[in-house]
């Protein structure tokens, strides 16, 4: 049975995004939309580019096939370009959820794929370890774990992303 709330959230994110979205961006924006309190029930785990839901990936394939979104490989051949499809119009979100999607786009909509990848990874790692170690050690431990998962990013970049999430009260 299809979950139409999931479809409506994906469509709303793709429709209202300020920049072109690829698969990584959609994965991370839906991750934060779910964290904001929209009951999407996607199970996320750490994959290539941070938190990733295989079920969401299946859903994107279905929505592409049905014509609700279009998933095309971009001309450079490196990534995908996701846009709304010809059957996207009928999917509307309730106001309470639309506000949360708007908040996610306001916070993260202009982030690069790299920023989204690192921010979502920080958030994920934070949620896994925050209850296991003393509060004063959480930040250092999260940064260390994220750098182990993403060794090519600099500590400065990871700390900057962490600070951004803290300022926005996301962690």
């Amino acid at each position, binding site marked *: 049975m299809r979950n139409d709330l999931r479809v409506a959230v994906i469509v709303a994110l793709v429709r209202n995004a300020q920049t072109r979205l690829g698969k990584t961006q959609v994965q991370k924006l839906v991750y934060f939309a779910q964290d904001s309190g929209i009951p999407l029930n996607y199970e996320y785990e750490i994959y290539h580019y941070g938190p990733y839901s295989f079920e969401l990936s299946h859903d994107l394939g279905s929505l592409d096939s049905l014509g609700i979104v279009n998933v095309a490989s971009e001309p450079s051949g490196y990534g995908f370009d996701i846009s709304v499809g010809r*059957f996207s119009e009928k999917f509307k979100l309730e106001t309470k959820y639309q506000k949360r999607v708007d908040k996610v786009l306001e916070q993260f909509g202009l982030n690069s*794929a790299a920023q989204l990848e690192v921010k979502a990874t920080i958030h994920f790692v934070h949620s896994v370890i925050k209850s296991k170690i003393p509060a004063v050690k959480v930040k250092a431990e999260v940064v260390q774990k994220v750098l182990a998962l993403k060794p090519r990013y600099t500590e400065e970049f990871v700390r900057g992303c962490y600070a951004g999430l803290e300022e926005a009260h996301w962690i």
Partner: protein
Amino acid sequence: MQMKEVRDPVHGFIYLNETEMKIVNTPVFQRLRYIRQLAFTHMVYPGAEHSRFAHSMGVMEFATRMFDTLMMKDMAKKKNWSEAHVKRNRQLLRLAALLHDTGHAPFSHASEDLLHGVKHEEISRRFILSDPIRSLINEFKKELGITAQDVASFFSAKNIEPDIVLLKEIFAGEIDADKLDYLYRDSLFTGVHYGRFDYQRLIQSLCLIEDPGGAGNLVIAIEHGGLHALEAMVLARYFMFTQVYFHKIRRAYDRHLLEFLKTYVGKYPSALNEYMKWDDNVVFSLLRKNVKNDQARRILTRDPFVQAFTTPEHIDEEERTRFSWLQETLRRELRNAKVFCDAAEGSPHKFEKIGTYVLSPSTGTPRLVQNESGIIRSLRKIEQYRVFTPKETKQEVHDFCTQFWKDHAAGAVSAAAVN
């Protein structure tokens, strides 16, 4: 360490070390002999009697070959792994691959709905963390530093260990050991030859690259020489989906089984020692004891519901909405006919696009396989819907559905409005 060899129709021989053999000999693993890989598919393809037992060892073999190929292509150097680290990770991957299906319910995916809202991977994780499997895995602790918790991490969504993230991709990623084994094994046992492909070439062409997005993550990709083998694998999945996994009669049996079990079992036990007792043979006994139940009778006397209507394999949202409308109307208008509807999205095996990178033959730069392969670019995810009914009402349901589908087609509706 002495190795034990096991004959296997896919791999020739599979080799296991002493501790792996001890794991195979536990009741938890032996139970997999009595869980068919493809549920009731043997009612359609009589050869499909193979079990999760051989598949699990096959996944371990494929995972090992993939790991060894990546090692030959400098994975250790790229990951800064020492020799001891390589040995540990190879064994860790083998254990996770071997144990990945231990949590399966009877008839594999067909009765997974009775698992208290968890997936079989979670039950596998619990078996790994419980004796006897836990103690046996911990035998590797002294020599290789492997614990049961490390193996269990493969099956936890909360894993944040970098090595496990990469190793997991080898047996549960875009091109993974699980898919390679089940496609080839299912093809062999069903006799549906579409599922075969040149897996040796595909494995040989695996490589580890920095992702082209510039973030520096290491991801598994394919050298250009393996492109046709990859295309063959993708087509094998497509054909196996349409011919086997989503076969109309197999899906009807799955449904009868599920309905029967919901009535007579409700949910499988949560306690592992009780859950362990459930396999295909126990369910068959239960079916035989309750042959007066309509679902059991249909399974045991080979009288399943039959397909009365199907949409095309690829539909759009208008057609999907039309099918929902048909479903509601059917239940309202044909009250005397028993029907159930089935969707490809409800199948445990799904066919969809993959996003693997292929290295360009001239420059070596990675490009998405969709850009390199016209065949893969043109394939769409299967979105097919069907209506099933007893054979006695097939004609009536067929006529109703076909007429409804025609009358409510997008063009037909607007033409009627104009008239």
